[in-house]
């Protein structure tokens, strides 16, 4: 029997969450509501007592960076370990031992200080989620400074998906897809126009005001952006 569900099948997971702050507590609630088995670990005695009023036996008191605390929580059989304490060192080490000592297949770590993301990567802790980064992405999406939003970075696969709004005087405006000068390794995969989206063909004409989605090799943004911004018209 697989330890991890196939896509689309519902299976009960055993999830250990380190840190009963707002993020950890609410994650535990959501996962319990979805009928998963959850153990939340909190090292602050007073916080533990508050959370225990609601979650009862699903929360344990202890320092989740200590091996015996993780073992008491049953880490050997955990399907997923989530480290969301307010301390980046703790989150890194909890995930490191979960992955390398207890061979847990899925881990998720919270990054409190985005500058520490490099250290999570160095230790092979992925995915590492930074709330600051997520909010910045949302801000960029609402207020695109350069008219470019990076929607998704598939780091393992070395691909990115970006979204661009076509400016009035952009070189691409009024041209067919096949006429737009794109570097190798970049492809227009979708056009959003008048509230709908479609996959363009070689003879589709791109209009000013369209939002286009491209898939590309990392590092090509700068070569692509001038085709869709008015800055590129002067060049």
């Amino acid at each position, binding site marked *: 029997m697989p330890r991890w569900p196939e896509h689309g099948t519902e299976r009960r997971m055993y999830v250990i969450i380190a840190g009963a702050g707002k993020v950890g507590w609410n994650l535990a609630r959501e996962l319990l509501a979805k009928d998963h088995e959850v153990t939340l670990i909190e090292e602050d005695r007073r916080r533990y007592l508050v959370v225990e009023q609601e979650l009862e036996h699903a929360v344990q008191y202890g320092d989740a960076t200590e091996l015996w605390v993780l073992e008491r929580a049953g880490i050997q059989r955990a399907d997923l370990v989530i480290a969301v304490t307010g301390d980046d060192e703790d989150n890194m080490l909890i995930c490191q031992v979960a992955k390398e000592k207890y061979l847990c297949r899925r881990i998720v770590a919270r990054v409190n200080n985005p500058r520490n993301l490099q250290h999570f990567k*160095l230790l092979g802790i992925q995915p590492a989620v930074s709330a600051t980064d997520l909010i910045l992405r949302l801000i960029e999406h609402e207020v695109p400074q350069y008219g470019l939003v990076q929607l998704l970075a598939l780091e393992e696969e070395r691909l990115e998906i970006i979204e661009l709004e076509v400016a009035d005087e952009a070189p691409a405006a009024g041209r067919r897809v096949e006429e737009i000068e794109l570097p190798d390794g970049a492809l227009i995969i979708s056009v959003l126009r008048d509230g709908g989206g479609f996959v363009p063909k070689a003879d589709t004409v791109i209009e000013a005001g369209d939002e286009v989605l491209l898939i590309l090799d990392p590092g090509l943004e700068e070569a692509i952006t001038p085709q869709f911004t008015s800055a590129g018209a002067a060049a």
Partner: protein
Amino acid sequence: MFILIVGAGRVGSAVAKQALADGHEVSVLDQDPLSHEQLDKDLVDTWEDAGGRFTVGTALEVDALREAGIEQADVFIASTRGDNTNLVVAQIAQRRFRVPRVVVRVADPARAAWYRQQGLQTICPTQHAIDLVKEAALAPLA
């Protein structure tokens, strides 16, 4: 050798002074500017006059590590008060900056043992204390 010590507590500062006296180049990084006093203590001059380096900064700041000279270090010692900080910064020194010798103080015996198996040179004061106390207390009475 060039020795970089992160954490100038009792252990870190004592090792720093010994290393300097032995003729090594020594740089100390600590987040607390007051920890400098720990280094000056018992010296005739200040730590800098004696030839030592001191940088204020936290262990996980790459800029502070660079400023303290991690790229030139032959030996890296992680001796802050926190096990978790020590274990993370030691791995940064080993994996990212390829420091040839990394020594890390870990108070928790279980993790000291496991990280030693993973290739980190861990020193566990707690385990030493346990061994010594056991030896002293459990020896048969004469």
